[in-house]
């Protein structure tokens, strides 16, 4: 990669890249996103390499591992270009057949193409799959097109064009003005207008300013930012460099959680490449503008997703939030004016600059512009990463894209916004998803986790789960959050052990009111959302636990009873081997019995039984 001293040199290089690119070239893209990786993407890619070599195809076929291709439920996904053939659930064993049938002969391996669960129609090409048809890709647009480790790929797709544009012909004020008019709001959760945040920071006097990318995606159930950082790292960098130019920042940080080692690696590689090419460093593209970036790795603290805690962590301190104001834009990292935006916000910036504020503002709803990426997971057929215009309804996302609930089960609730969000019941399925309407029903947009639950989920257990999570993660600085969460944990313990009384629910509501108004940071203030929404929409489930001492969804362990059906039990002893407390006994090949005194109700016997002989009630 040459170093581009001027925009003209970069343009020259782009022309070379375009000339050397053959759109008809056969390409195999093996998805190595967060969903496919655990299913063996790298092994599949290695198998392609071997099989292509055996057939002498190395010259004709370009093999790449790509970022997330979206439909994670059916991984490992393989996309073949230029035909756009989309194979799913590909294993190492399928690879020789794909190579022989599709790459050599141009045919289709029928059993690996997508079948729509509703219409049963076979979808050979990516554009025929309903999951993709309802999406509008902006942030995710490059993910199945490029090799995340190749700057050439990114440049060929128009990468760093927005940087060219702002450095050549826009003043910082014009950039801020454009972002403000686009209506972009922060994608990290609270939805603060991005342009306004930048303006605030620019207007604060001071020589030293910072920008930060918040990649501490800690919400359980969310992996949008991971997919972007791993799959299109240069887009994040490009957005940040443009932002730095607008604000007048010379230095920036990308804060990534250490649980995402691949994101750290890819971003570091992208930073090194960008520095080598002259997109970072001194006198960027001959404009006189200097800016450089470094990565700060998180160390495993959820609270560091909160911006003031994150900055404390970069400064080498423990991640305790501080009250605002002053806001980071006034006094942030090392006491200097700082703009902090999350990964998805930064990744939106280049396209907004390239295509203009009006184009962006034409997408979405009145007060929430553009698109939003969601990680659609849980009890839904097509789990995966989706990007839709703001204002798309929950029903469209869960049923049209998501293909509905598996196993003929009933939809019960969708949880948005992570531990700070709420559980939204069935009657709001037609709610358009944007910042304001989610807030009206007691939840939040959050970073974009969307967890679908069916009748097998207990809403008391879900709320208890989040409270337990936040109790572990609370930094402990302020009393309402620290002690409030501790008390909530105790109250939930009472409920699931059948020890709770009628007054428990009122006590919980009172506690939540205090936590909401008196906690220092968003963690404590919004920790009450899972409690309040489940109390509001699923009160009868709480009452069943308290009055009848029953968990209707058969989830809360202490209220369950496991027995073995002597008719169905074959005496295979699988459960005996699995039982951690030795509560199951009986002779081999004869029905077994569970000692209720010893049983800890862990459910392992229920899970390993191949004959449905273990009963749960």
């Amino acid at each position, binding site marked *: 990669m040459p170093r581009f001293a001027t925009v003209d040199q970069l343009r020259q290089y782009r022309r070379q890249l375009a000339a050397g690119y053959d759109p008809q070239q056969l390409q195999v893209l093996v998805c190595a996103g*967060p*969903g496919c*990786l*655990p*299913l063996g993407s790298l092994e599949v890619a290695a198998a392609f390499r071997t099989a292509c070599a055996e057939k002498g195809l190395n010259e004709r076929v370009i093999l790449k591992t790509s970022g997330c291709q979206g439909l*994670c*439920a059916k*991984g490992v996904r393989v996309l073949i270009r230029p035909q756009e053939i989309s194979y799913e659930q590909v294993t190492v064993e399928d690879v020789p057949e794909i190579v022989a049938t599709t790459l050599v002969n141009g045919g289709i391996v029928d059993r690996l193409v997508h079948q729509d669960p509703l219409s049963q129609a076979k979808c050979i090409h990516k554009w025929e799959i309903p999951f993709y048809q309802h999406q509008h890709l902006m942030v995710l647009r490059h993910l199945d097109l490029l090799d995340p480790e190749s700057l050439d790929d990114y440049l060929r797709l128009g990468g760093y064009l927005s940087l060219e544009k702002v450095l050549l012909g826009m003043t910082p004020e014009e950039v801020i003005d454009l972002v403000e008019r686009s209506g972009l709001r922060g994608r990290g959760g609270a939805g603060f207008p991005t342009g306004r945040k930048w303006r605030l920071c620019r207007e604060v006097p001071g020589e030293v300013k910072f920008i930060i990318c918040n990649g501490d*995606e*800690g*919400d*359980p*159930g*969310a*992996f949008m930012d*991971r997919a972007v950082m791993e799959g299109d790292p240069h887009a994040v960098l490009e957005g940040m460099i443009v932002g730095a130019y607008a604000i007048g920042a010379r230095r920036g940080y990308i804060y990534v959680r*250490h*649980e*995402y*080692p691949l994101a750290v690696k890819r971003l570091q590689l992208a930073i090194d490449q960008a520095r080598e090419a002259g997109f970072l460093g001194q006198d960027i593209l001959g404009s006189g503008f200097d800016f450089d970036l470094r990565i*700060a*790795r*998180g*160390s*495993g*603290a*959820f609270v560091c997703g909160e911006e003031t805690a994150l900055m404390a*962590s*970069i*400064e*080498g*301190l*423990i*991640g305790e939030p501080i009250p605002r104001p002053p806001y980071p834009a006034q006094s942030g990292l*090392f006491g200097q004016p700082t703009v902090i935006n999350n990964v998805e916000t930064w990744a939106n910036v280049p396209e907004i600059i390239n295509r203009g504020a009006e184009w962006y503002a034409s997408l979405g709803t009145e007060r929430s512009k553009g698109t939003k990426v969601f*990680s659609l*997971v*849980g*009890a839904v057929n097509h*789990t*995966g990463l989706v990007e839709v215009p703001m204002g798309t309804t929950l029903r469209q996302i869960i049923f049209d894209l998501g293909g509905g609930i598996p196993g003929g089960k009933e939809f019960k609730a969708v949880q948005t916004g*992570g531990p700070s969000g709420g559980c939204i019941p069935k009657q709001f399925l037609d709610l358009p998803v944007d910042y304001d309407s989610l807030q009206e029903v007691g939840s939040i947009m959050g970073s974009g*986790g969307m*967890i679908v*639950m069916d009748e097998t*989920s207990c809403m008391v257990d*879900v709320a208890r*789960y*989040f409270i337990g*999570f936040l109790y572990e*993660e609370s*930094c402990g600085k302020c009393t309402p959050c620290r002690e409030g969460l501790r008390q909530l944990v105790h109250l939930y313990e009472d409920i699931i052990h059948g020890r709770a009384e009628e007054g428990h629910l009122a006590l919980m509501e009172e506690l939540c009111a205090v936590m909401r108004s008196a906690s220092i940071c968003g963690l404590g203030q919004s920790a009450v959302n899972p409690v309040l929404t489940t109390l509001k929409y699923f009160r009868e489930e709480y009452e069943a636990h308290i009055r009848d001492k029953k968990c209707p969804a058969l989830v809360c362990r202490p209220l369950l009873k496991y027995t073995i059906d002597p008719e169905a039990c074959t005496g295979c002893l*699988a459960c005996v081997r*699995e039982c*951690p407390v030795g509560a199951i006994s009986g002779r081999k090949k004869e029905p077994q019995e569970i000692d209720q005194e010893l049983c800890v109700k*862990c*459910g*392992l016997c229920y*899970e*390993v039984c191949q004959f449905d002989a273990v009963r749960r009630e």
Partner: protein
Amino acid sequence: MMDAARLETIISRYDGEPYDLIPILQDIQDSYGFLPKEEVKAVARRLKVPLTQVYSVATFYKMFTLVPKGRHQIRVCLGTTCHLKGGQRLADSLSSRLGVKVGHTTADGQFSLETVGCLGSCAQAPVMMIDDHYFGRVTVDKVPKLLKPFQQAADSTP
């Protein structure tokens, strides 16, 4: 006895300012598998950061441990989706199979078992990691097979 050269290699990557504390501790954690006492004291001296502050950082963040970890790190995801799909049962099963509590290391030093907030592979819940390898849709009956290669690798190393 502290290996001064090994520690020096780590510290020399940074400016030596107080704000370098966390990256330096991370590198020590990665390199040693834990934060040894003498090394932590040396870092405090070099960065001119009070030892109490180093200790508060080392005990606040989950990534750091003050005692050595096992040869292989098992991390069971207890994110929301994994929770709904039986992540806790998976953790229980591993715990009873390896004879070790969550947050601890097996007596032979081969495996450390921990649970984490979310590994970000929610579409394949329940998910676990052994070292850098991800495993998705792990039902309890798959556990013995997943552990085997790591147990064998452990046995063959002297």
